[in-house]
Each structure stands twice: as structure tokens, then as C-alpha cells.
């Protein structure tokens, strides 16, 4: 019994050395082909990522003023009136311990340490605001906003940071052109 088992192992090893076992060919051709074709239509339904150059931004538009009303309704209870009070992520202003525009900052951080960092201070591309708001906000009802509403909220958040005028109407053309302070400060530990 033992010899028989040993014999099988030896044959197995021999086959492996000769490259007969299929697993030895993974380095080159793939053996696995169980994936099913994914149609363009299905891709378009699921590909929700917006890129920094604006690619994949949808049609639609929204104004700073429309965004303000939406913000007061759906965002302010977590992010605060000016986007700096928390408890949820700081949306406006610089990052760090102190700021002249927010004398109470250190007290806010003591209560909510994540307020050390800020969307307006760190994020390098305005397109990410649209992307994240559309996929994840509001926290209690993610993906419940339509494209026009997301444009409007993005416009208002950019305005809270003093990056766009209060009469701006945001769309797929002008959103990628908004310049964010976080871009200038970026260094990449992994090259693009």
C-alpha cells in the first residue's frame, strides 16, 4: 500500500518536472476561461468612476445656489454650516492644527480628530468631489442624488472653499478645469 502510494507520487513529480501538468503553464498562456463576456451596456451601468481629466462625467448641470439649498437639507447636519464644524469630514479650508479663518479649530480637532484634514486643503482634483458625492453621499442614503444635484453640491462645496464664484453653474466642461490647492502640494510615492 505504502509502495503504491509512493509510486504515484514519483510519477507525479516526474510529470511535473517534464512540464506535463497543466499548472506549470500558468506563466504563459492562461488555462482558465470561465469569465463571461461583459457587454458595453452593462459596463456603462456600473462604470461610475470619474477621472481627473473629466472623462466619464455625465451630462447635466448644477449651480452654487442650488447646491446651497441641497447642502442645508442633506449635508449640514453632519458637516456643519460652513463645512468645517464636523463631526463628519472637514469640507472647507486648510488642513492642520490652526487657521486664522477658524479660531475654534483646535477645539473642534480635540473633539473630532479627523477634522485635522480637509477636502479643500488636500484633494488635488475637483472631479473627485463629484465622484465621491455621487457614489457615497449622503452617508445615510448613498447614490440617492441625481447628476444635476451632484453638480450643484460640487459647485457649492467648491464655493465654500473660495474656488469658484457664487454665480457659477457647474457642468462636465468646467468642472475638470477648477484648480485645487492640493494639486500643487502633491508629491507621488508611486509615479502616475
Amino acid at each position, binding site marked *: 500500500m505504502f509502495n503504491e502510494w509512493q509510486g504515484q507520487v514519483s510519477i507525479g513529480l516526474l510529470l511535473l518536472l517534464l512540464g506535463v501538468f497543466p499548472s506549470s503553464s500558468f506563466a504563459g498562456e492562461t488555462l482558465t476561461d470561465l*469569465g463571461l*463576456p461583459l457587454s458595453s451596456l452593462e459596463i456603462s451601468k456600473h462604470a461610475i468612476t470619474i477621472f481627473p481629466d473629466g472623462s466619464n462625467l455625465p451630462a447635466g448641470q448644477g449651480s452654487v445656489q442650488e447646491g446651497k439649498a441641497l447642502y442645508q437639507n442633506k449635508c449640514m447636519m453632519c458637516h456643519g454650516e460652513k463645512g468645517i464644524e464636523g463631526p463628519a469630514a472637514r469640507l472647507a479650508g486648510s488642513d492642520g492644527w490652526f487657521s486664522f479663518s477658524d479660531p475654534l479649530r483646535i477645539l473642534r480637532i480635540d473633539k*473630532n480628530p479627523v477634522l485635522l484634514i480637509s477636502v479643500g486643503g488636500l484633494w*488635488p482634483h475637483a472631479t473627485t468631489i463629484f465622484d465621491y458625492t455621487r*457614489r457615497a453621499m449622503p*452617508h445615510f442614503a448613498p447614490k440617492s442624488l441625481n447628476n444635476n444635484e451632484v453638480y450643484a453640491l460640487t459647485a457649492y462645496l467648491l464655493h465654500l472653499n473660495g474656488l469658484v464664484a457664487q454665480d457659477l453653474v457647474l457642468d462636465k466642461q468646467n468642472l475638470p478645469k477648477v484648480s485645487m490647492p*492640493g494639486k500643487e502640494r502633491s508629491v507621488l510615492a508611486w509615479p502616475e
Partner: protein
Amino acid sequence: MLKTKTIKPAAAGGLLDRRSFLLSGIVLSSAYSLKAVSAPKAGEGRIDTDMPAWAKTPGHNDIEYGLPSEYEKHIKRVQAKSSPETATFSMWHTPIENQRGIITPNGLHFSVNHNGIPEIDPQQHTLRIHGLVEKPLKFDIESLLRYPMVSAIHFLECAGNTAPNAVSLTALDQDCQELYGQISGAEWSGIPLKFLLKEAGVKPEAKWVVVEGADGGSHSRSIPIEKLMDDAIVALYQNGERLRPSQGYPMRLFLPGWEGNTNVKWLTRLEVTDTPAYTKDESGLYSDILDSGKIQRFSFTMDVKSVITHPSGKQTLPDKKGFYEISGLAWSGHGKIKTVEVSADEGKTWAKAHLEGLVLSKSLTRFTIPWRWDGSATTLLSRATDEHGRVQPTRALWREKYASYSFNHYNGIQAWYINSDGRVENTYV
């Protein structure tokens, strides 16, 4: 008491040479002394006179899914304070000071969730690959379970592990679980992602893959294609059983050695691209702010790090003085741990610790060293070096590189202050 004649010191402060310690055949009298057993009365003839109750009754039956002993109920994860305090954004810390070896039990594995834990029906879950590929593909769970699988033991660490020591001006009196609870070790089994990417046919211009989860927030990170074609796994199993929902059931991306946030849970979509997307987390929370004010992005790898878990913060040494085995964990996202040194005199002298059990690449590595405490106040430190010669920096050296409020990727040397009454406290040296 220790028989110390033949035991050589390894460094000052009572650190002992392990070999001479083992050869000395020491007897820990307090732990192992034999109790005098009263002889049974003549004529009784029964052996149950001096036995505990559980040795004299039949035990109970087993249950379908086993649980720890009632006496170990206090060993559990603890939810860290977070802002905002909601169930959807939560950080659950592992009690690593109660762990031995290098594997964290699944129910105790740390978990950080930005948008809550989805309850996914695996029959309705799909993994999609598209973008810069020859054939966009989708996979259901039945198909994926038929693919060739690999298993590997690796640590997983949140980029923000030990953040309090990175930013707090004074050392907070916290325990190992609070300071180091965002690390765990497990055996992850699943499909090398390169099998699936090759099946789809990655185009030559592909450089990044935007990876997405199926949770409420559609968590998303951009990952360089080199890593995904190297050792990335679509993990379906953790420590021999299917993933728990809080670890990404039915499947997660596992990137050995890379910050936890990139190991996307509830994996559902891979978009192959030539550029990163600058998703929410790579834009802000998971960047490092440097001392120069620059924002460092895509610093994926968790650097070499270690911590003494036995003894550690908030514990009290039971005996005023005497023998203890110092034990801890070391790890590096770059490869294997080569050495761990321990100091029992605030870093003046160091001794090499023994690496116990498996020493694996990008895995928790257990270290131990015998120590005879003389009962005076002292400070214990551990310093790990990996196979590439990367050495843990001091806290001060780490701080020089980053802005005072930057807290990710902290890997400074941990110091535990031992008070003369035996209480252990987090400290900076």
C-alpha cells in the same frame, strides 16, 4: 526563584541570553511547584477525593460552530472612538496583547469600515473587469470557486495604526489594543488576480486598475498594475473559512504588505486604466502630509515595525521582580523580518530577540527574549530590521519627516515604561 549562576546576560536591564537560559534548566518555582497531595484515607479506594468537579462528571456535547471558553469572553475587539460616531464609519481593534503566534482568529481580526458592512448575497454578486482589456469579463461566485487557488500567511495593517503616538504631543496612557489594534495576521486563500487579468487580456498601455467594492459607499482605490500582476489575491477564504462579512464576503482584494484601505472589500469591479482616478481616500485621508507641507500620495507599503505585546500598556507585572518572557510582533510590508532587538534600559544596550516559529514575507513574526526584572523602573523597547536592511526609526526621527498632524504610516520604535510597582505605560523616549 531563578537559578541564575549559569545564565549569561544578553544586554543590560536583565535581558538574558536565550541559549544559556534554556541550557540552565531553570525552575520557575512559583509557577510549577508541586502541591503536597494528601493521601487518601486507607480503605476508601476512590480516586475522586481531590479532583475538580469537571473531572467527576460527563462533559457536555459540542455545538455546530465552536466558541471560545466562557473564561475567555473578555478577549474581544473594541470599537475605537471615531468621528462621526456612527455605525457606518467604524474602527474595531484587535486585542493583539492577548494573541500568541502570528494568526489572528477571524472573529478578532481588526476591521475598519467607511460605509458600514453590506450583507451580500453571493448568488447575486458579480466581479467585473473592463477598461483597457481585450475582452471585458464578468465572473460569478460559482465560476471563481473553480479557479486554481493559492494560500499565503500575511499581516494586514491599517495605514492609521498607532496614529495616537504619531500625533499626540504626550504619550497617551493606552494599551496595545488601542495603539496597535489595527493590525492582524491571517492565512488568506484565493485566486491570484493575474489569472483573471490575463484572461481578460490587459492592453500594453494599462498602468493602473481602479478597484471598487459593492458596499454602500462603493469604496474605491487606484492600484498600480505591477502589484496586481505580482502577488495580489482575490481572497475568498480567511484562515480556512469563507470571509466574514466584515472582511469583504464574498470576496476581497488582498495586497500583501500594502495599507489596509487598498485591500478593497466586497470586491466587485476592476477598471483597467492608464491613470489613477484620485479616489476619495487617495485624495485626502490616506495621504501623508510631509514636514515641507507637501502631500505624499500613493505610499502604499507598510514599513518595518514592531511592538512588545507581553508586557504592554496598562498591564501590571504580577511579581515585583523575577522572570518574564518578553514577547512581541514584528512585520514589514517589504518582505521578511531579519532581526528584532530588544532593550531593557531605554535603548542604551540592545539584545537580539529569538524569532519564534514561522518567519514569512509580509507576515507577522513572533519574537521572544527571556528577561529577569530586578524590580526597578525601566523602559522596554523593540526595534525591527527587515531583510532589505530597513530599520524602524525612533519616534523623533519619524516625526522629522512628517507634518505634526500627519498620522498615517507611523512605524516609530515603541517604548513601554515599567513602573517600579509593575504597571506598564506607553511612553516616548
